[in-house]
């Protein structure tokens, strides 16, 4: 965890630069004006979510193939950070939707997909809490995690097909058609700031899971072989 302090400083720096750039440097958007500035933060949340959930998916497969507990720690960390980013993305989206579209929520393909993803990964975390045996918890939740990830494109396609048949009253008016170069640069900074922050939180969550695992092992050792506990404690890393 030596890289932790420099990384944290980097993330803090990036976040401050991104916040300043989004508020003061990025040019005014033509139709939405100041409201549009939430976009830099909003898109950052989604890129963090997709990265975190992809990490979970890879970790789920990794656990099933190798059975190394590290993969399981990574998958729960990814899912938790992904749900947090998804929540932030949904909230910023709702806040943006009201002034931009006049309504808080619309059942657009992207919004619906993200909401369903949120539900799926919250269920994933609930499922993990309800299985006692660690090995079985890892395997069964990995199967569900893979199902949830496979479901995401299907949810998107089904909503896409549905909404093209019945056009929604409000269409996405974001900066879809060509970004101003300054806007593009500000966007790059804020997305990389959010991604760095997400990775730090993920690494911390992973460390917490590892420590939990070590604690469990020590507890088992303490119950079965009390003499070994003392020597194990003496050897334990102090972090």
């Amino acid at each position, binding site marked *: 965890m030596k890289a932790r302090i420099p990384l944290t400083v980097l993330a803090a720096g990036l976040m401050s630069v991104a916040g300043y750039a989004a508020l003061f440097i990025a040019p005014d958007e033509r139709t939405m004006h100041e409201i549009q500035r939430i976009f830099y933060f909003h898109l950052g949340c989604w890129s963090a979510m997709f990265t975190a959930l992809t990490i979970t998916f890879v970790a789920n497969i990794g656990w*099933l193939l190798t059975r190394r507990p590290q993969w399981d720690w990574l998958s729960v960390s990814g899912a938790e950070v992904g749900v947090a980013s998804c929540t932030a993305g949904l909230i910023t989206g709702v806040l943006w939707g009201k002034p931009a579209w006049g309504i808080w929520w619309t059942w657009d393909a992207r919004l*619906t997909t993200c909401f*369903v993803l949120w*539900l*799926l990964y919250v*269920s994933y975390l*609930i*499922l993990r809490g*309800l*299985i*006692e045996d660690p090995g*079985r918890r890892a*395997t*069964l*939740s*990995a*199967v*569900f995690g*893979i*199902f*949830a990830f*496979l*479901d995401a494109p*299907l*949810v998107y*396609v*089904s*909503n896409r*097909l*549905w909404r093209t*048949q019945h056009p929604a009253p409000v269409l996405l008016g974001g900066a879809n058609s060509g970004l101003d170069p300054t806007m593009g640069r500000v966007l790059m900074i804020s997305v990389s700031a959010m991604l760095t922050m997400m990775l730090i939180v993920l690494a911390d969550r992973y460390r917490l899971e590892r420590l939990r695992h070590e604690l469990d092992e020590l507890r088992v050792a303490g119950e079965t072989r009390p003499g070994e506990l003392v020597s194990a404690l003496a050897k334990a890393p102090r972090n």
Partner: protein
Amino acid sequence: MSTARAAAILLEKELRLEFRTRELLNATIVFALVVVVLFSFSFDPTSAESRRIGPGLLWIAFLFSGSLMLHPSFGREQANQTLDALRMAPISPFALLLGKMLANFLFLSAAEIVLIPVFAVLYNVSVLAVAGRFAVVLILGTLGLCATGTVLSVIAAHARMRELLLPLLLLPILTPLLIAAVEATASLLAPQPGLERGWLALLAGFDIVFLTASWLLSDFLLEE
């Protein structure tokens, strides 16, 4: 023993077990009926209104009764500790899963066959003219529901609060299936019945994706 043969034997076992008591089937049919009747109080069931809301209502009733009906499929094996016996049998885990899936598919289809005429009468919609195409939608939808539901019932059977957990895991996964099935049914019940190929493709795609995933993951799912 081949996978197909093993699955057929398991299917026969499931059917024999069920038809001794018929308790699962009876309860499922009555539950679906209760959902359909209760829904009628939430709106005015005139012909036009029924066509608009009916398809969604029908599939929600199937999804709810399916998610309740699928639970005993592995929950019963877990409670009686017969799951270990099944695991020890010299058959592939996918055969075990497939036998259960087919049994659940038949049970839910049976419930649907009873429910649809009742629905048509109560909500004043005509399904006879489009029976063939409707059957295709029902088969594809029910297959997807039972394939995902059977896998998730294995997962839920190993957890605490399993009765509540299965719908929680299953219903969000079924979002694409629900949208496609409801839209396909709605287009069949419209004044000029038609069937969009896109919805059928989506239903078939859902079935293929999750049947393949179940096949690939069955070893992990049923390991000791």
